[in-house]
């Protein structure tokens, strides 16, 4: 047996080490593309174990991939070069709310939704709300800098991180940031680490910011016969002085898919709908609700809908949530992108997506967090159809290029992982990417920490086909 496996066995309880093929296969994938068989899967339940594991990996130059619950959409935890998958999902959950400080300190395995749940017991809220919050671990959210519908008003994960504890790629423990809202001491390593996708170390604890829970929410839905108008309405709302907590967009294909899947009474003949949520004081909401209705109508919305009850509002949001499963019925494979553009460019992006769809004869539906320019073009295809997947690869490439051309970015909330690495230079430029790489090399001199992510190999291309 390998020396490094023996070393791991010496430092960890037997139950936390997996070498059987079935177990290794079970950690070979995430919610994105591709499968890569690790040589071993180990579980850490305390930071001392992480230190031991990382030190062994570093000493023996074995790649190591931190993993939460594997809900990543960009390939973050995939063991692309073999080696060790480090499963952090079984770490005992610790949530320590410090209500008077409006902070919470958590262990990496905590499910993100549980942080919000704990905060709400104190009249507070943890604002980032990725759709996977009830499954995904905060460790994974921190690594990928996850977003969610509320990102429009509150921002993404990085906007809520005050301090971190990290095991460096050489097995040392460091702390960054702290518990204060203001903290300008030195280079901001906290921000550097959030979104570094596990390439700079293993996060073992985080202190997060909480905000007061808004006393009320109000839902609205606007119906459009023209996609461009919907885009304009979004821009106009946002420049009007009102900041909704969510502004979600669904195109006709999504509306129809949802109505076919679980009818919610959405207008299937509309070109697009925009679903808005306002949060704040009830009186403010009633004024803002009127203002938004006016804006929508002036721009040319066919209809605006104010749900009569909480139940009706829940129904609308439920319909929005059904988009992902509903479109999966159109075709089995879903390539879900999160290319993001400046908000004024949403209508242009919609046009570009339409062109790409026609040019490559692929099925693309669009929904997403339009309020922050974060669209989710979903290419629907069938993994088993190699010829089609070839066309999909081309379409995806063009989607990324379109976002960049319009002054946008490759990823609004999913991260780069393996899926978008080939396009990094297009967005950052050669030197920009090189500066990132230098940081990586300085932190991780032996290159053991989550290799194959963010940084492309020479000539790396997007591959969705299996050989």
């Amino acid at each position, binding site marked *: 047996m390998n020396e490094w496996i023996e070393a791991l066995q010496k430092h960890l309880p037997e139950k936390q080490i*997996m070498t059987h093929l079935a177990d290794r*296969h*079970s950690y070979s994938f995430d919610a994105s593309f591709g499968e890569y068989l690790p040589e071993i899967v180990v579980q850490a339940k305390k930071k001392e174990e992480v230190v031991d594991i990382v030190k062994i990996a570093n000493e023996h130059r074995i790649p190591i991939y931190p993993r939460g619950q594997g*809900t990543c959409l960009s390939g973050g935890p995939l063991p692309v070069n073999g080696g060790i998958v480090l499963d952090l999902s*079984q770490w005992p959950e610790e949530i320590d709310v410090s209500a008077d400080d409006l902070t919470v300190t958590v262990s990496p395995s905590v499910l993100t939704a549980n942080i919000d749940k704990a905060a709400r017991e104190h009249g507070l809220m943890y604002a980032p709300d990725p759709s996977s919050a009830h499954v995904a671990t905060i460790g994974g959210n921190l690594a990928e800098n996850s977003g969610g519908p509320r990102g429009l008003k509150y921002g993404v994960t990085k906007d809520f991180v005050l301090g971190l504890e990290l095991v460096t790629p050489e097995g040392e423990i460091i702390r960054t940031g702290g518990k204060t809202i203001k903290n300008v001491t030195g280079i901001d390593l906290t921000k550097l680490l959030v979104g570094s996708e596990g390439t700079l170390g293993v996060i073992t604890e985080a202190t997060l910011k909480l905000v007061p829970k808004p006393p009320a929410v109000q839902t609205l839905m606007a119906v459009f016969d023209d996609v461009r108008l919907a885009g304009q309405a979004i821009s106009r709302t946002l420049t009007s002085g009102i900041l909704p907590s969510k502004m979600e967009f669904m195109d006709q294909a999504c509306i129809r898919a949802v109505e076919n899947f679980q009818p919610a009474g959405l207008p299937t003949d509309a070109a697009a709908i925009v679903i808005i949520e306002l949060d704040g004081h009830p009186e403010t909401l009633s004024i803002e609700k009127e203002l938004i209705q006016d804006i929508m109508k002036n721009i040319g919305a066919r209809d605006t809908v104010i749900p009569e009850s909480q139940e009706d509002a829940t129904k609308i949001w439920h319909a929005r949530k059904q988009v992902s499963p509903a479109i999966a019925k159109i075709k089995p494979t879903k390539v879900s992108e999160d290319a993001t553009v400046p908000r004024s460019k949403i209508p242009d992006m919609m046009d570009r997506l339409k062109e790409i769809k026609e040019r490559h004869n692929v099925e693309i539906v669009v929904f997403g967090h339009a309020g922050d320019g974060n669209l989710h073009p979903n290419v629907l295809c*069938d993994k088993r159809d190699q010829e089609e997947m070839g066309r999909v690869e081309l379409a995806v490439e063009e989607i990324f290029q379109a976002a960049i051309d319009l002054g946008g970015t490759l990823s609004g909330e999913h991260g780069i992982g393996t899926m978008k690495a080939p396009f990094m230079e297009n967005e950052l430029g050669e030197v920009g990417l090189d500066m990132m790489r230098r940081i990586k090399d300085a932190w991780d001199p032996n290159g053991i920490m989550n290799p194959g992510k963010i940084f492309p190999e020479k000539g790396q291309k997007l591959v969705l086909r299996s050989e």
Partner: protein
Amino acid sequence: MSSVKTLQEKINYDKTFDCVQCGYCLPACPTYETMERETHSPRGRINLVKMVAEGKAAIEDLQEPIEKCLGCMACTTVCPTDVQYGEILEGAKEVIEDNQVKSKTQQKTEQFLFESFFPSKGWMDTLGNATWLYQKTGVQKIARSFHLTKVAPMNLDQFEKVLPDLPSPKERKRRAKRFIRKRPATAKVAFFTGCVMDSMFFDTNQNTIELLLRSGTEVVLPEQQTCCGALHAHSGKIDQSRELAKENIKAFEEEQVDYIVNNAGGCGARLIEYHHLFEEGTEWHERAKQFVAKVKDITEVLAELDQIIYTKPVEKTVTYQPSCHMSNVQKVKQPPRQLMDKILGLTLKELDRPDFCCGSAGIYNILNYEDSMDVLDVKMKDVCSKQPEGIVTTNPGCLLQMKLGIEREGASEEMDAVHLIDLLAQAGPVGKWE
């Protein structure tokens, strides 16, 4: 057809593509929670099925993860893409079963259990009668005091402790096959007695018939009915399961009835899926569909007919452990709660996680005793935090398992477990028309 193609078809390779590996099933899965690895999660199992179909893993690699699945189907209720996990699981079991090399003794034992024992009314009665004899003659007492029960195989001694007192063979024989009303009936019901249910929980079945009669229905017990086939399907013996389904369909076609009623969540789940056993467009598929359309759990029928008032208060605080198969496959969730609401004096404290499996899962708790107890421990922690005086269940497996849970917690002084039907029978049921 190549053997790869056959394997792929049998193992439902195509259906695995519906899984987008989002992981939403992870928090719902009891074995993922207790066994702490992806291999024992629905997503992990589906992926392994795919790996086997693609020749990247062997059927042997699949065996343990599939055998350790409780089949509680909690994952299917949270799956956003509606993956047919039940079909994938059964396909995998069938392939594992086909692939297994078994010793002669093992073959003989299984053959006896699945072909003769469960489907046979005679054997089931014998089991019930033997247990009665064992309980009544004092053998049970002697065996316990000399710790003889400890030498029983597969931890059966644990279950022996919690079996209910059984009726005598005479009582068993005396039961009528047909309960006709003098006044016009509200409905005609065919009662599916269930094999284990009828042998080990004879009184619950009697109470079921009694409640149906008090609801103003006419009740028949078709004589040719047999085991539902759930245990066979869970063990990968789909062909036998299909044969049993045919026998039952035939038996229940004899009479024109409005409902085919059962009182065991696990059986009910199998009965309502009979049409999946037959290819669409075939005559049997059609006949199965007609059968399935009439299948209802007893609680659904009682709640729907709503012809009974409960006159005797049961001053008790209870909690409710719904059967997974009833909640997740039959989707019967509210009727049992509605019925408990009608019992005077009864307080129902809901569990924090009522939909978390108790670990019984057919004969899982016998085949995988330790793993089942890990699941049970999670359940009992929830139960004990509610400090109830009783646990109400709707499935014989859950009932025995909860009784065992109470024993393990050393809480038999404080609480007991009861089938909802028996609880209703205690509550002085009187027909509204009586």
